[in-house]
């Protein structure tokens, strides 16, 4: 597996410096086109501000005028070693679905905390969401060290707070780095103001993170569609786990039938022998009558078929869920109707103290452990085993309102 690119998200509380850090990364890696810098300088001037790096990502007019990030955005930069995709995510609670949209596409995360303000509500909420999204490569940066006189004591204090919170969530940051994004301390080069710190800069820390990894896992191929091409019927979809070889025995798990792979289909590739994790391909099976979207072609150990799921969900939309509301459940190419049968526990991850049991509703930005009852069985794996087959989206009235992960057992 060679992948010379890394997608990472920058999250954290409002005004703790996410967009400034991005501007600084681009500026210090010489990734900023001059015209772009000029446009930002001019717009900053019109609005009567100093050069505002945040405008790089905050392209929307409303964002520049209000000085906040509303939507998620992506921007690219290169070092001699690697290409990076930065995903910027808004810090305000009201834009939580945009933060999740951004973070769900990342392979690593930078959690930014203001040295002066310390850990705040959205620091906690974002930390919690990183753990639910399965992000394990996390770097914490303690920003605005210039505002606290580059104090080691203050750094250690904030570091202790955030580490304690994250370890409860099962996140152990690979690095905790004192920086000033505004001044450029420890972003791309070590800072003379922070001589007491001997760890990596932000750029060096990012360099240690890995892109997607191929692990040895059972084969999963959720059927996306069936195409008729030159008289041949082809099942199309993406290998969501493991790999598949021509001639291999597989199970059609929706139907419980065993059959074998006659051919793997890729345009302009003559009779390929195998396909691996992440590839969008076509498959022809020995027996494939009646197979369609939502069926999962798999190898042992097979996914579990069930119409009752226990999982953790996070609410993204600005409308509450009331028990009894109908929902649509979507996991890979599978869809089912159903409802949240039980809300076992729910809480606001920004203030973990108040856990409520047996609630009747879930409010925006809350997380909950729930039991979902569906109108027909779906095939799932625990999120911790095969994330692609263990994560789902809940829709109400055609709008994605929540994401969730399947618990074990």
């Amino acid at each position, binding site marked *: *597996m*060679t*992948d010379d*690119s890394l997608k990472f998200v920058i999250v954290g509380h409002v005004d703790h410096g996410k967009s400034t850090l991005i501007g600084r990364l681009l500026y210090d890696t010489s990734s900023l*086109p*001059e*015209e*772009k810098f000029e*446009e930002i300088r*001019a*717009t900053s001037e019109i609005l009567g501000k100093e050069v505002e790096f945040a405008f*790089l*990502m905050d*392209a*929307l*007019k409303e964002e520049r005028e209000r000085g906040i990030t*509303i*939507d998620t*955005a*992506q*921007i*690219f930069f*290169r070092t001699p070693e690697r*290409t990076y*995709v930065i995903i910027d995510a808004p810090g305000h609670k009201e834009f939580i*679905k*945009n933060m*999740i*949209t951004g973070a*769900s*596409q990342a392979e690593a995360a930078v959690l930014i905390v203001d040295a002066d303000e310390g850990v705040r509500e959205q620091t906690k909420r974002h930390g919690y969401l990183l753990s639910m999204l399965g992000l394990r490569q996390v770097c914490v940066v303690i920003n605005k060290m210039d505002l606290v006189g580059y104090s080691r004591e203050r750094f250690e204090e904030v570091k202790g707070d955030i580490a304690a919170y994250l370890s409860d969530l099962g996140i152990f940051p690979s690095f905790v780095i004192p920086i000033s994004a505004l001044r450029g301390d420890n972003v791309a080069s070590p800072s003379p103001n922070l001589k007491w710190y001997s760890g990596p800069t932000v750029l060096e820390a990012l360099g240690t993170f890995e892109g*997607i990894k191929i692990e040895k896992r059972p084969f999963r191929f959720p059927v*996306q*569609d069936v*195409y008729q*091409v030159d008289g041949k019927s*082809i099942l*199309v*979809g*993406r290998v969501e786990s493991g790999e598949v070889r021509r001639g291999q025995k597989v199970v059609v798990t929706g139907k419980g039938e065993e059959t074998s792979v006659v051919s793997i*289909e890729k*345009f*302009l590739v003559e009779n390929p022998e195998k396909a*691996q*994790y*992440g*590839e*969008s391909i*076509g498959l022809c099976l020995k027996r494939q009558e009646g197979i369609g*979207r939502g069926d999962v072609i798999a190898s042992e150990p097979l996914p579990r078929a069930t119409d009752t799921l226990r999982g953790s969900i996070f609410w*993204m939309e600005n409308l509450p869920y009331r028990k009894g509301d109908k929902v649509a459940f979507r996991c890979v190419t599978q869809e089912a109707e159903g409802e949240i049968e039980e809300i076992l526990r729910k809480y606001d991850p920004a203030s973990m103290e108040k856990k409520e049991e047996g609630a009747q509703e879930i409010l925006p930005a809350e997380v909950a452990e729930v039991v979902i009852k569906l109108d027909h069985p779906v095939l799932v794996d625990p999120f911790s085993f095969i994330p*692609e087959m263990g994560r789902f*989206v809940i*829709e109400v*009235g*055609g*709008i*994605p*309102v929540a*994401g969730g992960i399947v618990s074990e057992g």
Partner: protein
Amino acid sequence: MDHLDQLESKSIYIIREAYYRFKDIAMLWSVGKDSTTLLWLCRKAFFGKVPFPIIHIDTGYKFPEMYEFRDRLAREWGLNLIVGRNEEKIKEGMGPFKGSKLECCTELKTNALKQVIAKYGLKAILLGIRRDEHGIRAKERYFSPRDTQFKWNYEDQPAEIWDQYKSKVEEEEHFRIHPLLHFTELDVWEYVKRENIPIVELYFAKDGKRFRSIGCVPCCSPIESNASSVDEIIEELKISKTPERAGRAQDKEDTYTMQKLRALGYM
């Protein structure tokens, strides 16, 4: 899978997802490098037989090389090509020098597209926009709902996670689908090279100039360049510091022209 394989696989997944959701779908082909790459990905997704129409919005101001290239590929690849023109405004003499560029783009591109969508009853359009082109495009979703007025509600976009896309279409809506969103300009050229995708010759330098982004003749300026092959373009981009759309006039009228254009349904 290398980096390009990953980008390709995601695009193909999105194209297939779009076709599963919407049978009344079409692809918008500007004949530029991005949408030609998207067209190539569509051919891959459907094993060479693209099952939906390919729309070219013709303002009448395109380069002659673009028309020739369009017709040749349409023939060679067996495309169902639809050419959309806002004939009424073209006859009235609409152009970039009469009124503002915003108005010209709106009439000859956005409104021409509206006419095609209405005529063919389309529910979804595939477009080859990319996040790194422009700050506003960086905010796009893969599946982006638009109302009949083509308005893009960029302040309240649906969440999009784990390849689950909002796709329920209200009567009054249509969807913009962006399978190339995650490609950068450099990725496109590296992919063009690997796949040997045919690209209109305007991109390759002649007499020390080439086009980095193409559209209508009056609103496109070439850049200084000696890059006359795909390899040379890749080398040039690796060191370039000017933005891709520097030669596109409509981006420059004021800082938010692109946002206004996109909110109004511009591609």
